């Protein structure tokens, strides 16, 4: 596969405040990448650097193997063939939907433009809205127009800045899948920025978790959840708690919920420093790692419960006073304050040095 976009040791600052700190990643042609992180982590700034709106203070950005940004050069945004969908959509309020979508086709002939606009409107399912104005459309429709407008000039790369954050939850889920289908059908390479994990998981092929201007891990959703590279990712992605443990032997860790023997994430095997015998570690326990067991000797008190339909997410107080989360089938409906038997049943667990 060809690398379409390459960021190498990119640095960016507003005055003295560093916003992106030596950040690198590659994106293959046709892939949908995602920058995921809490607000203020610099993810939008990365997007703006790629689009060419922000100058770099160090590092370089390559598009199709051509350098477009470095410390003292920046190809103007209009020459990059990079499309962008903005968080507030930024539709032109004085133009109709068709005019908005056709705006980037100003060099094309009228016939070509009309054809392309109607094709795109069909793709996003807004053919009837062609002659309406943006304020006459709902939020979801405006979002689709913004997407169609960005796609119209056939950009090499599409950037989307929190594209679904202004929509309500049910629409957000539906539209994010729709957008993924559109992008995949048209073989478009894209980067999405979001703070919403579910959105990232449902749209992106590869996700970079960002924190303080750095990428903490650039990986698939599966690996981010099951094989977090560090504590930040482990905490940020999914739910879970850290239980302290002690390494008894390679692949054998004692915790307050019993001894873990199998399926310990390979990181522990390869990294001797963390896992030599006797060292203190933290074990990441996800809610689905703790199961209900009547006959178990481990007992925990129900502190909170959140009904989730098929399951109930219990917050449990362990005998040592630590809390743990457990996702238990909602047939087992326990009252708050009740003592229940639990046991660890992990396919594999992640271990970090304490």
């Amino acid at each position, binding site marked *: 596969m060809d690398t379409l976009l390459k960021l190498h040791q990119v640095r960016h600052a*507003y005055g003295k405040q560093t916003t992106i700190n030596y950040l690198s990643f590659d994106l293959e042609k046709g892939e949908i990448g995602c920058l995921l992180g809490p607000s203020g982590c610099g993810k939008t700034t990365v997007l703006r650097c790629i*689009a*060419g*709106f922000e100058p770099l203070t160090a590092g370089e950005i390559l598009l199709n193997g051509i350098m477009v940004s470095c410390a003292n050069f920046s190809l*103007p*945004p*209009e*020459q990059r*063939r*990079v*499309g*962008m969908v*903005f968080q*507030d959509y*930024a539709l*032109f*309020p*004085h133009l109709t939907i068709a005019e908005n979508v056709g*705006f*980037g086709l*100003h*060099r094309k002939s009228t016939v070509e433009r009309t054809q392309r606009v109607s094709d795109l409107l069909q793709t996003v399912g807004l053919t009837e809205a062609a002659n309406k*104005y943006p*304020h006459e459309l709902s939020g979801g429709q405006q979002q689709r127009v913004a997407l169609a*407008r*960005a796609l*119209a*000039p056939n950009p090499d790369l599409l*950037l989307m800045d929190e594209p679904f954050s202004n929509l309500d939850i049910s629409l957000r889920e539906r539209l994010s899948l729709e957008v993924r289908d559109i992008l995949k059908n048209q073989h478009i390479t894209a980067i999405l920025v979001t703070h919403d994990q579910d959105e990232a998981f449902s749209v992106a092929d590869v996700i970079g978790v960002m924190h303080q201007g750095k990428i903490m891990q650039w990986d698939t959703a599966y690996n981010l959840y099951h094989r977090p590279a560090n504590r930040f990712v482990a905490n940020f992605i999914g739910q879970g708690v850290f239980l302290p443990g002690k390494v008894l032997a390679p692949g054998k860790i004692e915790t307050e919920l019993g001894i873990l023997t199998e399926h310990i994430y390979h990181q522990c095997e390869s990294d001797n420093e963390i896992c030599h015998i006797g060292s203190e570690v933290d074990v990441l326990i996800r809610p689905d790692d703790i199961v209900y067991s009547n006959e178990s000797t481990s007992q925990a008190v129900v502190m909170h419960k959140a009904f989730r339909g098929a399951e109930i997410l219990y917050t449990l107080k362990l005998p040592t006073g630590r809390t743990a989360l457990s996702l238990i089938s909602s047939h087992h409906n326990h009252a708050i304050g009740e003592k229940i038997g639990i046991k660890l049943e992990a396919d594999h667990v992640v271990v970090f040095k304490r």
Partner: protein
Amino acid sequence: MHVNNEKYSTVEEKNSDISRPFFLLKHKVSIWRLIPFLVAALVFTPVIVVFSSFFMPANEVWQHLVETTLSSLLINTFWLSVGVIAGTSLLGVSLAWFTAVYEFPGSRFFSWALLLPLAIPAYVTAFVVLGLFDYTGPVQTSLRIWLGSELTWFPDLYGRGGVIVVMTLAFYPYVYLMARNAFLTQGKRLLEVAQSLGLNRRQGFFKVALPMARPWIVGGIMLTLMETLADFGTVAVFNYDTFTTAIYKAWFSMFSLPAASQLASLLIVIVFVLIIIEQQFRLRMRFAETKRSARAGGILLSGWKAKAASFFAASVLFFAFVMPIMQLGIWAANSLLQSFDQRYLEFLLHSVLLSAMATVITCFIAILLVYAVRLHSDILTRIAVRIATIGYALPGAVLAVGIFIPFAWLDNQLNEWLSLLFQIETNLLIQGTLGVMLIAYMTRFLAVGHYPIDSAMQRITRNIDEAAMGFGLSGWAVLRSIHLPMLKAGIFTAATLVFVDVMKEMPITLMTRPFGWDTLAVRIFALTSEGEWEQAALPAVTLVLAGLVPIILLMRQTDK
């Protein structure tokens, strides 16, 4: 049980009646319904009076005017409008664009300083420019000495060009303010969209920023145009005849009020066309409204571009504000011993007194209107308020005529009745009193006072009233402890704006003042019509200082 319940509910009803604000009591509601219509009628009377004279049979003076000056009035007004529109939009839009989008040396400073010329009444800039640049002024005199010859190439100031330049310098801030607001609300965001769609910045300006800002720019131009048409002082100083000066002459030189009124009716037709256009664009402005996006600093200009931008902004600021202020300062200092006397203090006192009275009346009526709409915001009431606040578009000269005529008629009626009944000869019972003048001021500046109070009131949601009543506060207590404190800032802004506007107002004061009520503005008119620039400087400086107050208020608002 059932009986008890009923008893309880009647007690509650009674209580709720007591706890209603006084203005919500059912039997008093009718008067609040009437108020907007009464005010609208009062404001609209002069319009109808003037407009009806459009259809009046031609009299001799009018015939004379039509034959001699009418065509030149129309031509003068047309070219003046065209010139001022071109000048203000060129200066206003370009300066707004530079300060809203780019960063260059001094851009922060210029972004507010470029509003300062609003503090100087156009007629003051006018006489300063004349005093500086006419044949005997310091510029031409020193050039003659320096070059040792007559300046045959020096442009004639007393022409169309001079008036246009002065009005452009005085009025460009209206366009600047509106356009800048539009460019800031669009943010850089839409420019970036254009760039991401393959347009460069210049194309982005012409294809996105400018078309999107059009409603605001046209709004600014309309304001400018209304000021231009309403202007009396500037054109009077330049001897450039327009409708306002013609109205004045017809009335006070030819003593024909009907002719003045017929001239006014022509002007009012033009103004109404403008109002309709403005309303159209105001509607569009609402559509185009977007959230003000956070500004992470403008695009940094460097090299000659930055220098050129700074130089451009600095020269506009120099000619529109710094130069007039400096010259006024010099003249005022030179003439201080002569001008600062008993009479100056008298003019100042008159100005302040009149402004204060007009402010109290205007703000009081504005508050009544705002409350009336809060109680009944049906469409008829809102139309009435719209009509009641139309005065900002009516030139002072037109209003003066339109208000004077009905009062003169009333006076005549009264006179007839009184002489018939009591054999008393009373001349001029109402006309020539302060009342006429104050009504004229109120009519002209009600919109200025209404807007800040109205927006303050709109910030008090009905939920706030209900929350207060939920705590058991009575109607008067709600008014005192919730509404008045929350309206205070709005009333203060309104009062400041009205006060200063009345102080600067020239034609209404000139035409309707009672004998002996000369103000600073009237004094400036008298002195400048005799070319006494230096003597006029002290009153002018006083007006400029007063004019700075609302500008500072405005700047603090736009900064937020």
